């Protein structure tokens, strides 16, 4: 054990902080190995939170934090961790970090805490976190695991925000709370006041389906389709 540890240390010293491999760890999950559209992990929360942009963004930040630090912690513990209870240990680490997020938000960003409500707790069951721990952190050194966590968190968050943007605009006519299209004065494009807004968009109505989780399923499906049509690497020809 001691020998391998020394060896590892030597290699770690030679490796740059942000070499090619490290940059790949950050960029891969954004496209080629996206947790939602390619690994198909974390779908459950992606369907549920994405009705509004702001909670999605906060959720994304929280997942980046939890994913990165859970990866880091588990990677640090990986050599001493008894294999029989590794899942339980991983869950303890995740649940711990999520509780920290919840406590801190409640003390310093109460409004956001109120808005996210149940979803903070749901990060614990987010498959991405556990998936990355099992697939990456258990077999890699801490710094790389940390980067992998950030990369996957960002990949997840990016999709979340894209889906939320589409759903909020078409479902509610707003974007991050800004009123864009609707039938009262408060909206930028007013579809009921007889001006150009009504001439062009008088027929427009919000799509009620977009508000429901099923819409997220369609939007994610379409995103996967678009991604695969230009990224041939992802298409399984066999």
């Amino acid at each position, binding site marked *: 054990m001691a020998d391998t540890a020394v060896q590892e240390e030597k290699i770690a010293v030679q490796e740059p902080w942000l070499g090619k491999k490290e940059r790949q760890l950050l960029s891969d999950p954004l496209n080629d190995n996206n947790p939602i559209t390619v690994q198909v992990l974390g779908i459950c929360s992606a369907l549920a939170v994405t*009705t509004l942009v702001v*909670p999605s963004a906060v959720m994304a930040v929280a997942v980046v934090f939890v994913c990165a630090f859970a990866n880091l912690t588990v990677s640090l513990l990986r050599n001493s961790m008894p294999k029989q209870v590794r899942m339980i*240990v991983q869950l*303890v680490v995740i649940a711990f970090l999520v509780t920290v997020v919840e406590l801190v938000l409640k*003390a310093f960003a109460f409004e956001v805490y109120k808005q996210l*409500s*149940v*979803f903070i707790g749901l990060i614990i069951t987010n498959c991405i976190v556990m998936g990355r721990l099992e697939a990456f952190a258990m077999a890699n050194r801490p710094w790389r695991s940390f980067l992998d966590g950030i990369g996957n968190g960002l990949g997840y968050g990016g999709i979340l925000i894209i889906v939320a943007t589409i759903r909020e605009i078409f479902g509610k006519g707003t974007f991050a709370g800004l009123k864009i299209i609707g039938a009262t004065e408060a909206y930028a494009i007013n579809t009921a006041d007889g001006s150009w807004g009504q001439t062009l968009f008088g027929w427009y109505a919000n799509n009620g389906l977009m508000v429901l989780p099923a819409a997220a399923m369609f939007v994610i499906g379409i995103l996967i389709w678009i991604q695969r049509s230009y990224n041939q690497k992802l298409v399984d020809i066999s």
Partner: protein
Amino acid sequence: MHSNKYVFLYTLALTTVVAVVLAFLATSLKPLQDKNEALFKKKDILTAINPDFKDKNDEEIEALFGSVEQLVLNPEGNVVEGKAEDVDMKKEEKKDESERLYPLYVYKGEGKELYVVSARGNGLWDKIWGSFALENDFRTIAGVTFDHTGETPGLGAEIKDNDDFKAQFYNQDPKNKIYNDETGQYLVIRKGGETKANAAYEVDAISGATVTCDGVTKMIEKGMKPYFAYFNTLKK
């Protein structure tokens, strides 16, 4: 493979460390959280009185709240000793119905006299609650706020987040009333199709949040009784 002894000691050590850190964080952040919670509650009551109060800063909220008269009612509608802000609806709910206390806030200002009543009920996932500011006919709604523990953002949580939904309660013409003296029915959160005949006693529900909206209807029906008993004594 590690020995059983190692596994036990390892998990014991890990859980102890986690428990100690969490306990430390929880207790050290508690005062901040309590302060947020209390301020949030005050803001909530004030927003029911006037939606513009939402943008006031912390000190202004404290000052405004200080000018609000606070009463506590028992289920028969009699005033009992105490301050409304000390009544925790969450705890009251667990008591027997005959022992519950109800907070009532009375606001006098800007030429208005508003009575803020509170109710608590069940949403889809967890509790929902709300406050209604009533004009001095004790029927017409002048303002409203809602809150919840765990409704879905974008769906059930819209009762709190969607200003347009809340505005329906006090911005419609004719003004909405919480109770119909002729039919003996309370205000209803209605799903689908407009029925103009009953417009003053109905509010349009939120799409995709049927259970939460039904919860609001039930909450109003159940929660108003002691307040109405008190208001009847005022009328005489």
